[in-house]
């Protein structure tokens, strides 16, 4: 985690030759390239799923139900004869959208809480951090489950639930950064120069603390995807016939022995994405001096 933070900190002040050298380091790692390509593919799918499949994800065809993977149906067909590849791709926008919403919630709330807490310190800090402690004490998935039960089913409630669950990490990271930046000479200089607290906060502390948090957001994308898939696996996802990745995996689990592709192929699709994100994050850590 600290290594990643250092990378980001350096990026903000990075010089051009250093950057180019680092790009070379990345290019020499085929695993990193593959992972990046896969993530880029999934993101492209999330915005234009129809570009990658010609089949209707909702068209049932009982005569062609439960077909094993083939050229016509890359991922096979489900119990109603729907093309699973097309369903996985059309499930991407839902899951990616939920991930983005969760991250935005975590970013905004985490940044806000962290900055206020780190900057003002004292009683405010103690109070806010105790609230965060309470949130940290409740297992993330349990917290998400309780929130989603209160909000009802669907993509947005699931995103909100997961977002709230990862707020504490963001708040803690931001607070630590703010505590560090607060004592740096240029902040003192700005204060001495007569800048107001608001100005110091918005112009000097915030821009210099949010970098590491942004990197944390990328790292947490994988975690959020798993959490969202878990919740939709448990049946809290979008209304049928739309299917998030977790829903697809859950729908196929009764057929694991007889039609393995129903659960395993969507599962593989998600697993590869999360692995890729983790690999990218790890590469960032490794290439950091």
């Amino acid at each position, binding site marked *: *985690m600290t290594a990643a933070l250092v990378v980001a900190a350096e990026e903000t002040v990075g010089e051009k030759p250093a950057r180019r050298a680092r790009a070379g380091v990345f290019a020499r790692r085929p695993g990193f390239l593959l992972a990046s390509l896969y993530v880029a593919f999934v993101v492209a799918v999330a915005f234009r799923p129809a570009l990658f499949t010609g089949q209707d994800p*909702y*068209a*049932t065809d*009982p005569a062609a*139900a*439960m077909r094993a993977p083939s050229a016509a149906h890359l991922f096979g067909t489900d*119990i*109603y*004869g729907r093309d699973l590849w097309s369903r996985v791709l059309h499930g991407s926008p839902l899951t990616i959208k939920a991930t983005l919403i969760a991250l935005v919630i975590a970013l905004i709330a985490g940044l806000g809480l962290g900055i206020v807490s780190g900057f003002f310190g004292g009683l405010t800090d103690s109070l806010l951090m105790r609230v965060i402690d309470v949130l*940290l004490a409740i*297992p*993330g*998935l349990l917290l998400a489950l309780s929130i989603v*039960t209160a909000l*009802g*089913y669907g993509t947005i409630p699931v995103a909100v639930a997961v977002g709230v*669950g*990862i707020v504490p*990490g963001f708040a803690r990271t931001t607070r630590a950064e703010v505590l560090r930046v607060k004592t740096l000479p240029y902040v003192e200089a700005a204060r001495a120069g007569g800048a107001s607290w608001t100005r110091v906060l918005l112009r000097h502390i915030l821009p210099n603390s949010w970098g590491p948090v942004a990197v*944390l957001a990328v790292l*947490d994308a994988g*975690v*959020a995807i*798993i*959490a969202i898939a*878990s919740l939709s696996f448990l*049946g809290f996802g979008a*209304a*049928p*016939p739309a299917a998030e990745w977790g829903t697809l995996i*859950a*729908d196929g*689990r*009764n*057929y*694991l*022995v*007889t*039609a393995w592709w129903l659960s395993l192929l969507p599962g593989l699709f998600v697993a590869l994405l999360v692995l890729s994100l983790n690999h990218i994050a790890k590469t960032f850590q490794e290439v950091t001096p």
Partner: protein
Amino acid sequence: MKRFAALTAGLTAAGLLALSGCGDGSGTAAAGQKTLKVSYWPDNPTFSCIDPFQVYWIESRSIIRNFADSLTDQDPKTGKIVPWLAEKWEISPDGKTYTFHLRDGVTFANGKKLDAQAVADNATGWIATVKATNGAAYGASYIQGLTGAKVVDPRTVEFDLSAPNSSFLQATSTTNLAITDPAEFQLTPAERCTGKGVVGSGLFALDHYSAKVETVLTKRAGYTWGSETSANRGEAKLDKVVFNYVAEDSVRTGNLVSGATDIAWPRNPFSPQDEQLITKSGDTVESRSLPGVAYNLYANTSAGHVLADAAIRQALSKAIDRKTYATTIYGADYPAVQGPFETTTPYFRSLSDKLAYDPDGAKKLLDAAGWVAGADGVRTKSGKKLIIDYPITAGSAGPELLQAQLKQVGIELGLRTLTTAQQATYLKEGSYDLTSTYFTRADPGALQFILNPEVANSKALAINATTPDVTKRIQELFAEALQTTDEKRTERAYAELQDYLVDQGVTIPLFERLQKVGVSAEVHGFAFTSESFLKLNDVTKD
């Protein structure tokens, strides 16, 4: 930060363990002891109960059948009522008095005698239980009109009814009116639900009932009073029966195939894939249609709901391809539903013609009602889309196929997954356009407990299902069928009723409910009762 990852990893691991089917922890039986293991789907989450009179959960009733006997039994092949605890009986010409002559020498599992006094005390206990539970006890539906019972002599007992009830004799053959040691009625209904004081005269004795975990029956020595519906009328051929509850269908099937359990008993029929897996591994799949009300759709016809229009209900019914539905969800040889009732229900009448798939007819009806096809395929009328709100529970197979079928004629079926809290309230709130339910009992009178607002399990569903004048006609037809002892009149009334229900679009049949059971190759003598419950009299295990 890693909490999510760790947790999900943990969940996945737990899931995999469960999937591998190694979860069965029941120990090995003592040498020479024959123990049969049965895996059910989960026990009732809100009303776990093993008291015969109160319980409605099919799985519990199936267990009860094997530790508590009834006055009469019903032949699963013919539907005929045959002697059991009662050797013979008479019904008075006015249909209000039933006299039962009891078999001699029958005792409860605790040694007490099962005589006329015990039976009469049961009747008193039933009536008291109905009062104590405000009519919520399921058995209430079987003893309509019963005012009490009196002892004529130690082996003769007389039941008195305030009005004729032609389904009462069949009721005495059900598990809900099984005769138990009347001492149990001194306990509160809730205490009895846990199995406390529940003692029957069956070929097994209830050892213990741990709600949602397991139920254990042990063999009873000296049993000699089985009914003629089984070949073996004496002692059981098994020493012990253990029923457990397995939530995942694939795990239950896996348990059977791997030999961890002897009988896999799902609530919904096996998927065709699971069925293949079972037969391929040498085990067999037994199947019988559950008698009673089929899996029907019921509309919300109250004001402001789109299905208040009978034409749309008719169109909806015509747009359902029942044959494809059955074969896609449950396998190539699964029968299509033929009417509001299951084929094994007495007085069943096939209405296949009226339930034929007719998408063109549906489109015509919708056109005539002013619903025109919109750009996205969904019909609209004065700016309103034809959307039918159909609340479902998570993970149910089928609704998505129904949705696709209705889309063909321009009806959008909105599937809304309910939370557990919403499941309990959505009917009462009337926040639905379409819902579905079923009811298991080997008598058409069962439909009353869905559609007759006076006795229905959900009053809201009964009231919303149709208009007051249609409800009135349905009640009249039921009265005509029930308040008589003339077989012909009953038959005529029920035939008319079934036509009326389909013509009015009150019941929209979706699929026939088959009880499918996976039976290990080591188990012999498997049999269903007339209610498609498990009957263990002839069952033995290698």
